[in-house]
């Protein structure tokens, strides 16, 4: 079996089992869907941080921007025939255009300057959204917009429909899961396959080369800012896609979705899971969102725990959870190979 096929099969298997295994540890099916959606945003964020070394402090502008555009498309453009495809595609496209505009200015900067410029644009967008009361409902955010239907061929599918009832003992009931999970899982699967291919392509290799030594890559003939801009656009597009999906799934877009704390959450998710790894952002997103769902109701200092986890990971596991595991596995394999050779 080729590594690519094995990766696809394992990912698909994981997605099929996730909500049931998740139920057994007190997670609920709705959270499983939200985790998959947020993971797409974190994967987008990691594509930028992991493969260009650029830390964006403004990814909420794509996430929240995607959410608002999707909601506004439903409310203003197609209230009679709310089409999920069009809302999601329109929002992703809008996020991509925004990323190209911001990126065209930002990719010439590095480190703190890049972080602060992205933060500045995100803050501008936050305040513009907050002040555009007529369109965005200001601080209250948008709710009660038309539930989008998913037209496939002659059918128009309501993703809120649960699966048929089937008791599964400690793993809950099949009907806990709505079609939304299947849809989110399919999109997530596509994103994983696409990002894996992208990072293994020549494009991904050039990005890594630029990150490691920009001067040399430029001298070889690669246009470094153009490559970074492309990475920024893809990153923004994925985050915008996630924002749109989350808005449609939740049926609401809070003002926080364009706020500074949302930008910070993608940083936390990705660092905790592990930058430069495929599954790191997914694991980080899942872990933090799960802990938040379980703990934030019981403990009023959940956010303190989150901060402690974040700092502890930076100090003790600088490669993140998945990155550390990967490194250990590699060490083991190297040791094993060395001992085999010695024999």
């Amino acid at each position, binding site marked *: 079996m080729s590594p690519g096929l094995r990766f696809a099969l394992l990912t698909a298997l994981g997605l099929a089992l996730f909500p049931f295994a998740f139920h057994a540890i007190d997670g609920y099916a709705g959270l499983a869907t939200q985790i998959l959606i947020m993971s797409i945003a974190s994967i987008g964020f990691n594509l930028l941080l992991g493969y260009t070394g650029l830390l964006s402090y403004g990814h909420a502008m794509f996430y929240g921007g995607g959410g608002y555009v999707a909601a506004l498309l439903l409310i203003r453009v197609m209230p009679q025939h709310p089409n999920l495809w069009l809302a999601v595609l329109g929002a992703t496209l809008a996020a991509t255009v925004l990323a190209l505009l911001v990126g065209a200015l930002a990719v010439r900067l590095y480190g703190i300057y890049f972080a602060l410029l992205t933060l500045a644009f995100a803050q*501008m967008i936050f305040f513009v959204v907050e002040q555009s009361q007529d369109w965005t409902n200001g601080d209250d955010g948008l709710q009660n917009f038309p539930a989008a239907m998913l037209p496939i061929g002659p059918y128009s599918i309501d993703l809120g429909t649960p699966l048929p009832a089937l008791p599964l003992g400690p793993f809950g009931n099949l009907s806990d899961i709505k079609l939304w999970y299947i849809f989110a899982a399919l999109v997530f699967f596509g994103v994983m396959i696409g990002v894996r291919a992208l990072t293994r392509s020549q494009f991904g290799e050039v990005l890594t080369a630029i990150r490691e030594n920009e001067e040399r890559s430029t001298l070889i003939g690669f246009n470094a800012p153009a490559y970074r801009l492309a990475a920024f656009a893809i990153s923004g597009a994925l985050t915008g896609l996630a924002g749109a999906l989350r808005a449609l799934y939740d049926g609401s877009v809070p003002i926080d979705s364009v706020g500074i704390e949302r930008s910070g959450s993608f940083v936390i998710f990705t660092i905790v899971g592990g930058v430069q790894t495929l599954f790191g952002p997914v694991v980080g997103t899942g872990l933090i969102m799960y802990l938040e769902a379980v703990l934030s109701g019981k403990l009023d200092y959940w956010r303190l725990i989150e901060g402690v986890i974040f700092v502890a990971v930076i100090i003790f596991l600088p490669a993140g959870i998945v990155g550390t595991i990967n490194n250990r596995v590699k060490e083991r394999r190297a040791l094993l190979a060395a001992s085999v050779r010695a024999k």
Partner: protein
Amino acid sequence: MVALTQALLNGLVLGLIYVAIAVGLTIVFGTLRLVNFAHGAFYAIGAYIGLVVAQQWGLGPALVAAPLAVALFAVILDRVLLRAFYSKDATSQILVTFGIALIVEETLRLIFGSTTLQYPPLPALATSFAMGPIVYPAYRLLFALGVVVMLVLVWLFLEKTDYGLIVRAGVRDRTMVQLLGGNIKAASTIVFALGAAIAGLVGAAASPIYSIAPGTGFAFLVPSFVVVVVGGLGSFWGAVLGGLLIGELQSVTTLVFPPAANVVIYLCMAVVLLLRPQGLLGESEVIRQ
């Protein structure tokens, strides 16, 4: 006219807070090459300690206790944790100090609650200063004067002392200072404590004017970073110029067109970053960090 004068005075007070926080950020960056997202936390800790002390013993003791306590906290933080990050890239520094800022904010929330706290109505805060038709709270004017005096003292420290010499030289060429035998390590502890103490003092002194909440530190930090970038990372006068510019810009926009008040400072920063990335008074050498 009266409204404009008051807006300009408000902008001056706000700008001076930004200047004070930004000066700390900028000297810490200049000497230690540390991008400190936890600097706003020093302001917040100072504000809360100041409030607690002021309720017991009055405003005077608060203004002594807050900077000392914050400086002590900063030195411990520096020794235990941050020192390991001096030599790392800006991204790692941003991440770890952002994490510390989160922890401090949530600890303050745990101790003092999420509610916004107000100062008790001290008699010193009730007095107003009148000049013709313009009436302005005396405490604010006193505050502005106090910050200016403090900035002059900091400037004298940087210009007239040996430590200040090392700090200024470190901004230009850190390696050369070390090669010439300058003790950057000793200077860095003092500079870090000094930057934190300034933020703590201003936090305690400004909170009778602005209210205090756990998120206050970060709320002041973000505009202060705007100030540092506009003025030039590592430049003392850049922080002063940038702070006053941003404070007045924000205040006057609030008067003229309130919805844009928060957007305009980020717009200003974006324009400066794109046209003159080293900032108005910055050295071009530091931009590729």
